[in-house]
């Protein structure tokens, strides 16, 4: 039987990390993670009095079971989380869903395109690749609205010494470092020596679709593009029905989808808009 009841976690650290965003460290209270967690999976956070919602691990549980998550204050549930501090307890269920194809990524030229707080779900992958000795073949294109809204400052500082990190701002960026991420794809994809084998993208859905389309135009195969999507969820185990993408549930078959699989799902229905042109950073 599924266990819908959460286990207790305690906040042991919290700090501001970007506009309206905070980085939390949680510690399990009275339980151990009983199944291995894949990078790119997610967990459900129960906030007593406010409800439950999915969040990504910015770092998966270490030996002590501690893990981190970046949370943006955007709705009534996260507002409640922001009223909490060290020592407060919350509910935890997880891990859920399908993570990034890390087995495919290791030792390949990888381009990661993240937008806004879409950097959080790829953070563990970057750490994993660095730890695995692949840092030379990782390029991160990180796009955000402005300098204040950039998240994961500590992580980016750490990564900048080992991976190829390229940041762009929609507003306030200096020349050559401003505008949308898609503007820089031709530059990053055309480099003869470092042409990516695989692209991982996470950010606003319209951004991911635009990134994927640009990558296709630049010669990448649809099956080499992976994305992690966001959906509203009320269970994480394929029951509540909220996170559907055609006949799949993002909590089970996602949140990581191969681009061609995702497009095939979208094409099963006709009224869903494909490839919206505009996007906003969350």
């Amino acid at each position, binding site marked *: 039987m599924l266990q819908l009841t959460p286990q207790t976690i305690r906040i042991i650290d919290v700090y501001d990390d970007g506009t309206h965003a905070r980085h939390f460290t949680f510690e399990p209270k009275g339980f151990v993670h009983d199944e291995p967690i894949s990078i790119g999976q997610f967990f459900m956070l129960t906030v007593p009095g406010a*409800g439950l919602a999915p969040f990504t691990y910015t770092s998966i549980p270490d030996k002590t079971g501690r893990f981190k998550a970046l949370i943006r204050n955007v709705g009534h549930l996260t507002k409640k989380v922001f009223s909490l501090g060290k020592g407060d307890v919350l509910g935890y269920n997880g891990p859920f869903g399908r993570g990034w194809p890390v087995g495919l990524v290791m030792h390949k030229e990888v381009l990661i395109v993240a937008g806004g707080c879409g950097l959080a779900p790829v953070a563990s992958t970057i750490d994993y690749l660095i730890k695995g000795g692949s840092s030379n073949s990782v390029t991160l294109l990180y796009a955000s609205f402005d300098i204040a809204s950039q998240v994961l400052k500590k992580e980016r500082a750490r990564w900048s010494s080992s991976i190829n990190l390229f940041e762009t701002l929609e507003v306030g960026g200096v020349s050559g470092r401003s505008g949308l991420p898609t503007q820089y794809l031709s530059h990053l994809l055309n480099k003869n020596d470092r042409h990516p084998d695989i692209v991982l993208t996470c950010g606003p*859905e319209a951004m991911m679709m635009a990134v994927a389309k640009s990558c296709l135009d630049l010669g990448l195969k649809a099956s080499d593009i992976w994305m992690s999507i966001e959906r*509203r969820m009320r269970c994480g185990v394929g029951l*509540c*029905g*909220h996170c*559907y993408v055609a*006949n799949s549930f993002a909590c089970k078959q996602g949140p990581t989808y191969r681009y061609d699989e995702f497009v095939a799902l979208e094409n*099963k229905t006709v009224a869903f808009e494909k490839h919206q042109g505009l996007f906003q950073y969350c």
Partner: protein
Amino acid sequence: MTEANNMANKLLINDLDVLKHHIAKFYSVVQIQKDVNGQELWTEQLGDKLDPLFGHNHLPLTSPKGFLFAEKEVLYKFDGETFETILPRVHPKVLFGVQACDLSAIAYQDKFFEHDPYYQKRREHILLVGIDCESPCANGFCVQVDAGPHVKDNTADLVLSRLSVDETNEFSEWLVIAQTEKGINSIKGMMLDKADNKHLKRRRELFEKVRSEFVDYSYISNAIEYLNDNSVPAQLWEELSVRCMGCSGCTNLCPTCSCYSTYEVVEKKTVTPASISNEVKLEVTHSETIRCWDSCLFEGFQKEASGHNPSQKAAQRVERFWFHKFSDEYLPEFQRYGCVGCGRCEQTCPGSIGVHSVMKRIDQQCCN
């Protein structure tokens, strides 16, 4: 189940009340009843008031879905430190006289909620007594989606089928088929005559007779094909969805709809600030997480806190609803469509975009 297929488990009875009273010794009876407005609903009987309104010629507005997948229930509670599962407190219930369509829906939900502890806790205490329909109902098209009009194999514990009726003496002969161990046990101790092959043959004849009485619903089969060909134009969904008011009437009455949401009921206490600079905050000391039926046709069903809504347009929501009911994509998992042909959505939809209206439009538009 070889034992259940044995002729020993095929019996005859003349008075269903006798059967029901026997079962009522061990189970609380849930059956179709008229409410004060004359509306026929699935209701739990209290006391010994057992006036029958059997399903063979009454399709009630509600299905018995709520007796398995509760309309509202507590999942767990929080005491300030830990979370505790609250499973439903249940007692044995018999759903007496369930039609084939609703039984097919229960079999569908049994699969969907196979690992849901709340659903299964209720399910294991329920005895399903199915009843063969004797005539097509107003909006029913169970024959088109392989859900009726007779009870499908392995969807009920007991199946009742009226083989003959003598109106003058109010005498009926009913075939009782026990399909499961639970069904066999429920009639233990009753002295019933055994049925023979002639009774089973009679049931098959009645099945063919009822089947032949259905009007031509081929537009439904056609529309299912068009839906699966992906040949329904987006424009048609736009036109149909203008009529969707997001009232959730269809999803609430649909016996296979299973989407739910959760909400919290809290007990708060004021925390006195330690110093003047601390803001007064309400601390949640106890809370309960409750789940309740939700509807994929609500505008906010998929809306995220950021404002992003993957199904912002009514056309998207309406299309996805019908995709969920009739797409071949779900066949590997459920071995049947998500629609059991009860027609309740047609009966209730204030915008007239229930199943018949929608499938007729698709058939008309796509066949040209």
